[in-house]
């Protein structure tokens, strides 16, 4: 390995630290006779911000779905605070944000923000849900658009509502699958900055799937690089930059060094790996 911070997934020490909130051990997924994920080992400590980056088809979204309990691993084992992902889901420990905000067009922003919470906890009254929805919209900076319908909101605002909807569950983990992938560059920067602020205020553990190298370095504490054929973790990189971070980070020589390093790792990950 050329870069000392790169550790091959297979040779990674299989220790589980007690502050690990999420741990995946030897997770493989076979779908339609294709090995989508091979022997994934992952440990994410509580309150961390981790990005998964890799070429299309590397199974990064599938890995996120495994963590969310939406896809069952063919082999291996995932635990979230000692629970299986499905159990964690039942305890509202997992908040999901996808590339498409998927807001309900017949509900306004507040009701969209509290929609999942209402389903997760049927004991809450309408007023409780509204109050929570308002609070979450406030948190994502949409306090004054509470009564707007989705079609009256911009793409970035819709995605903020989607984040508010996930946060309303008060989950331990926020799993985000290319949440800013459909936004323009400027909105994307602003959303990243907001996400960092939300992260620092709430202390959630965030796992972000992205295909943007900048975004991964800018936001996360650790980046895992994934490769294709089969989908696997080919390397990991610690982003040692101190928080709080802002856009001036891009002028930091350390940022540039990490950028080059990550790009090199990503290029290597485009090569199909032989069956190990």
């Amino acid at each position, binding site marked *: 390995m050329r870069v000392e911070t790169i550790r091959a997934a297979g040779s990674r020490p299989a220790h589980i630290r007690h502050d690990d909130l999420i741990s995946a051990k030897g997770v493989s997924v076979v779908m339609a006779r294709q090995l989508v994920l091979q022997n994934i080992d992952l440990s994410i400590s509580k309150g961390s911000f981790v990005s998964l980056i890799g070429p299309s088809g590397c199974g990064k979204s599938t890995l996120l779905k495994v963590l*969310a309990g939406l896809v069952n691993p063919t082999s291996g084992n995932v635990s979230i605070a000692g629970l299986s992902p499905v159990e964690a*889901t*039942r305890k509202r420990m997992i908040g*999901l944000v996808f590339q498409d905000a*998927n807001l309900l*067009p*017949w509900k306004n922003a507040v009701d969209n923000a509290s929609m999942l919470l209402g389903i997760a906890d049927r004991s809450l009254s309408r007023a409780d849900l509204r109050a929570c929805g308002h609070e979450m919209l406030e948190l994502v900076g949409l306090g004054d658009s509470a009564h707007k319908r989705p079609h009256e909101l911009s793409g970035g605002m819709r995605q903020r509502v989607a984040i508010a909807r996930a946060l309303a569950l008060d989950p331990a983990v926020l799993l985000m699958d290319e949440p800013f992938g459909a936004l323009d560059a400027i909105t994307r920067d602003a959303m990243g900055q907001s996400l960092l602020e939300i992260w620092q205020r709430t202390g959630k553990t965030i796992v972000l799937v992205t295909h943007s190298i900048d975004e991964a370095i800018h936001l996360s504490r650790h980046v895992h690089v994934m490769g294709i054929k089969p989908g696997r973790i080919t390397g990991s990189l610690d982003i040692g930059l101190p928080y709080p971070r802002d856009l001036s980070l891009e002028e930091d020589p350390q940022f540039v060094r990490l950028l080059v390093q990550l790009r090199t790792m990503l290029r290597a990950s485009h090569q199909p790996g032989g069956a190990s």
Partner: protein
Amino acid sequence: MSDQPVSNLSESRPASSWGAVTGSWLPAAILLLATIVVWEAVVRIFAISAFIIPAPSEIAQSLIAQWGALMQATLVTAGEILFGFLVSIVVGIAIALVIVRFDWLGRALYPLVVLFQNVPKVALAPIFILWFGYGLAPKIGLILVIAFFPVTLSMLAGMQSVDRSLLSLMHSVGASPTQILFRIRVPHSLPNLMAGIKIAATLSVIGAIVGEFAGASDGLGYVIQFASTQLDTALVFAALLLVSVLGIAFYYAAEVLERIIVPWAPKFSHA
């Protein structure tokens, strides 16, 4: 549907709304008027017999002369259409819900519904008369078999086109199939359903008239049949005119309903 850009225009530029309305309706109105004038002229110039093609003026005379009887027949037919239309909506929605909610039953039911759609249902009219007599029932039955299908199909399409990641979100909080059905699938299907209901409105009119053709002692279909045996073609046309007015009325009633039920539908909410 065609008036949608008009209402958008009138919202953004209230001053020119009248211009927009006349702008969109004027060409059609002119063409209609021209057709009537040419029709009248051709019939008069070539002295075409009234029982082959009556002139518009003769149709109007017939309409006025038979006004009372025609209104009574219109009322009867309108009642059949309304009743049959509502039954079609209810049955159509119920079938769609059953197909989506109960997987096994759905797989049994759906192919049969599609198969039944290929039966020429107009041909069922005599059988329905045989079974249900000459009253309201055979007409309702006929409207139902003709009009429920677009309702079922459009609602199914709407319920099944829910985004997969939205379903993932619902699963991520442990939503039950019933919760997903009523909180997501049903409201999501409403714009599609309304499109199906508008088709059903038009088909209901056809169902009622066919039902009356097959056997009735009242209604506009009966008037059309009776008048044509009497070679009173002007009366046939007068009744046809009223049937068309009924069709338009039901269609626009469905359109108004759509605006009330799904004001958030994509067709209304584009910027």
